[in-house]
């Protein structure tokens, strides 16, 4: 019991004193996740809108596929990207393995189906009058879809936050592609997973608390958005 209380005390001390180790892991986590969600959104939102709006044969199939991709285990994504960016892989020449860039690639792949799927759901649940209203007021096809996106902005923001929540909390991709290098690719999750066993329980606890706060905040935001 003393051990736990002592660790919690140390954890808070680490946070309050802005311990270098803690700060570095938080910064890496947040920045890698933000870059990932940026790229995933740039691709996933337009793709999601296009799939949601368009009528084409096989649409059901595409959505089912995206749903399945959403359930991809992070270590499988890590494995595939590892194969691509490691020395012997097709992108081996860039020396990306165990860099933040590799983590961004992996987490982008992880977040993309989530962002696309939530966007599709949002488009499919949209008021059916939006596009005809825009069209009859003189909008072109592209302008009418842009108006749809404007009307759905909360739903689309929710899609982005859901993707962010997923990547900030995942450990598989960050571990396999980043390698938990201290001060470089070590994230909150890899630090917790790898350092706890090495006697760094208080550090893990401190990072766990921060991670939880970030995740809770993202979820809170998501809930607020979904209620609008």
């Amino acid at each position, binding site marked *: 019991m003393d051990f736990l209380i002592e660790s919690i005390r140390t954890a808070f001390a680490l946070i309050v004193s802005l311990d270098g180790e803690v700060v570095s892991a938080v910064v890496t986590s947040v920045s890698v996740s933000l870059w990932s969600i940026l790229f995933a959104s740039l691709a996933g939102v337009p793709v999601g809108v296009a799939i949601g709006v368009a009528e084409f044969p096989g649409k059901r199939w595409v959505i089912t596929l995206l749903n399945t991709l959403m359930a991809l285990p992070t270590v499988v994504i890590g494995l595939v990207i590892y194969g691509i960016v490691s020395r012997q892989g097709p992108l081996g020449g860039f020396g990306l393995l165990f860099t933040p860039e590799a983590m961004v690639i992996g987490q982008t792949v992880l977040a993309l189906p989530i962002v696309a799927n939530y966007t599709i759901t949002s488009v499919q649940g949209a008021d059916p009058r939006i596009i005809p209203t825009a069209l*009859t007021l003189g909008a072109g096809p592209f302008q009418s879809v842009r108006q749809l996106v404007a009307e759905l902005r909360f739903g689309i923001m929710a899609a982005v936050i859901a993707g962010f929540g997923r990547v900030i909390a995942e450990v598989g991709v960050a571990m396999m592609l980043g390698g938990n290098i201290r001060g470089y690719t070590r994230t909150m999750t890899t630090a917790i997973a790898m350092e706890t066993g090495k006697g760094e329980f208080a550090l893990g606890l401190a990072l766990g608390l921060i991670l939880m706060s970030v995740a809770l905040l993202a979820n809170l935001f998501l809930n607020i958005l979904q209620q609008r």
Partner: protein
Amino acid sequence: MSIIYRLRNIRKSYGQRTVLAIDDLAVRAGRLYTLTGANGSGKTTLLSILAFLTQPSSGELIYGGGPVRWNNASLLTPRREVTLLHQAPYLFNGSVAGNVAFGLRMRGIRGEEQHRRVEEALDLVGLAGFGQRRARELSGGEAQRVAMARALVLRPRVLLLDEPLANVDRQTSDLLEKLVVALPGQGTTVIMTTHDPEHPDRLGGELIHLVAGELAGPAPAAASPVKEGEYQKCRPLKKPAASFLTA
């Protein structure tokens, strides 16, 4: 009088059910039509076809002298001449003024002229000073009037009104009725659905009556057959009459 719409053997089906079947109907430019019929008789479906928003399952729709080609590129121009006011209008997120300005923005009308026309249109429907209100916070009748202003501000060639007077109080209804009746005099063709049995008589104009998706009674096409020579190429309104909005 030129013919603006002609429908030939138009059918609209959902699955096995045919909800609209019009063999022949001609709509003359610059007239007022009241469209009546029971719930589910196909009024909204017909207006949606006339607004180029719903493609008929079969048949030919002629607008402005030529057959309508149902692809987005060809529809842009006719859609900019015809505006439909939905039975239960959707207002975009944002301000009342933003809603009324939407169609003007789509036409590249900005700045001072946009502002002036928006104000005029709001004034016209009795909502002067409502510009900065949030559209979503309006009452049903106010929203209906904003949607009316949003359509009127475009000075369309054809205005299709789907029960524009449901939801509004007596005073507003009188106001809007006056507006609508004045439109044909300014060159706008108006087709308005209504459930008010007094409307066809009171508003004058011609009656289109639907029963289960078919024309019933003396339909305009039957009453006044149109010779092919009467078609006239549609030109955009040269210069919108200055009095258009203030009449």
